[in-house]
């Protein structure tokens, strides 16, 4: 079912529609939470917390176009609250390759899948070395695919800042990946 058709059912409180909605977005919410917390258990707890919040506010569920930005905004706020509670900044430490093997991939060859997971782990590590704003811009714009305007609204910064920072952040990340031998 298309998201446009699904959302009215979800708003009406249909249990099957809610399950379909959770299945559709759980990977995105969990991935963003994982990038912020760098801990899969914390990310799972936060993702569940996000869906509980969404369920309590189903009347505010936006239409299909605004649904993902709305969810990601709730996820980001939940993650920032969590990090504030933990009194720690996102650590972005070394992530075991096996852990990122959970990333959805179409690779069937185990060797290629392992290589792919290693490259993703390297990107994840390099992301952790960026400044907070640059990292968040990359998480929301380049990874989650939100528009510049949506990212600016979530981060509460001007659109121009997102545009300029986005280029800078991508270059910074590319330099770190090149230094790690990924661009060679």
């Amino acid at each position, binding site marked *: 079912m298309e998201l446009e058709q699904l959302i009215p059912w979800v708003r009406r409180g249909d249990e099957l529609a*809610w399950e379909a909605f959770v299945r559709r977005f759980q990977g995105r919410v969990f991935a963003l939470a994982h990038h912020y917390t760098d801990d899969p258990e914390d990310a799972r707890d936060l993702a569940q917390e996000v869906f509980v919040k969404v369920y309590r*506010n189903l009347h505010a569920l936006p239409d299909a176009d605004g649904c993902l930005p709305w969810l990601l905004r709730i996820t980001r706020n939940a993650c920032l609250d969590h990090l504030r509670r933990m009194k720690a900044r996102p650590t972005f430490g070394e992530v075991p390759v096996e852990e990122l093997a959970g*990333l959805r991939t179409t690779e069937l060859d185990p060797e290629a899948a392992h290589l792919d997971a290693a490259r*993703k782990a390297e*990107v994840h590590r390099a992301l952790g070395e960026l400044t907070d704003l640059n990292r968040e811009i990359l998480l929301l714009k380049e990874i989650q695919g939100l528009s510049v305007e949506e990212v600016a609204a979530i981060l509460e910064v001007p659109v121009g800042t997102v545009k300029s920072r986005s280029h800078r952040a*991508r*270059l910074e990340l590319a330099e770190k*990946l*090149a230094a790690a031998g990924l661009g060679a």
Partner: protein
Amino acid sequence: MTDPTRFPDDPELTRSILGRTSGAPCARLRTLACDLVDGALTPDEAALAQAHLDHCTACAILVSALRASADLLPALADLDPGPGFTARVLWATSLLPEPAPSGWARLLQRPRIALELAYLAAAAGILAFHSPAARLLDAWRAPVLSSPLGASAGNLVQAERRTVRAVAGIFVAPEGQPPRPAQRLLASVRAWPRPGDAGDERRGEPEDTPPRPSPQTRD
């Protein structure tokens, strides 16, 4: 056959000339690199950037890393939270009350909506009859009552009073006449013992129990 007008590339010579003129063009390439990877450059700009990349290893590695990250970053968007996650979320939300409805339906389902509406109606009534606006309304009405139409309204009021008297005559007999059935019924109802009457207090007591002395009797 080689072109006799072209000499083999000499990177040192190029670097030397650029160093004495525009400076290294790598900074310019950095401003274009993201758009080059995104395919957002004009053909001319793309050709110039590509010509630089053909001769600059550092920039070529940078652009290659940019391309790799452009491929890898979107793949980080979706991460499988594990097999039991969906069931966990559905269990957690099943414990919650039904989701609140939206819009007016949500407003009407507020537990105190009747009280709130009554409060609003009372406030509206007070405003309508006791506010300065109500006095203005009366002042506006006064000329209407004094007009011929107002006179006819006065006749209507008199007719209404006569009707009320006539209807009352059906139930209440004029003085000196026997009471109407409705009056008799009312009198019999009034004669029923009420709580606090002496007869009522005695109800339920055995018949041989002597009557309780009244306060006056006790004195």
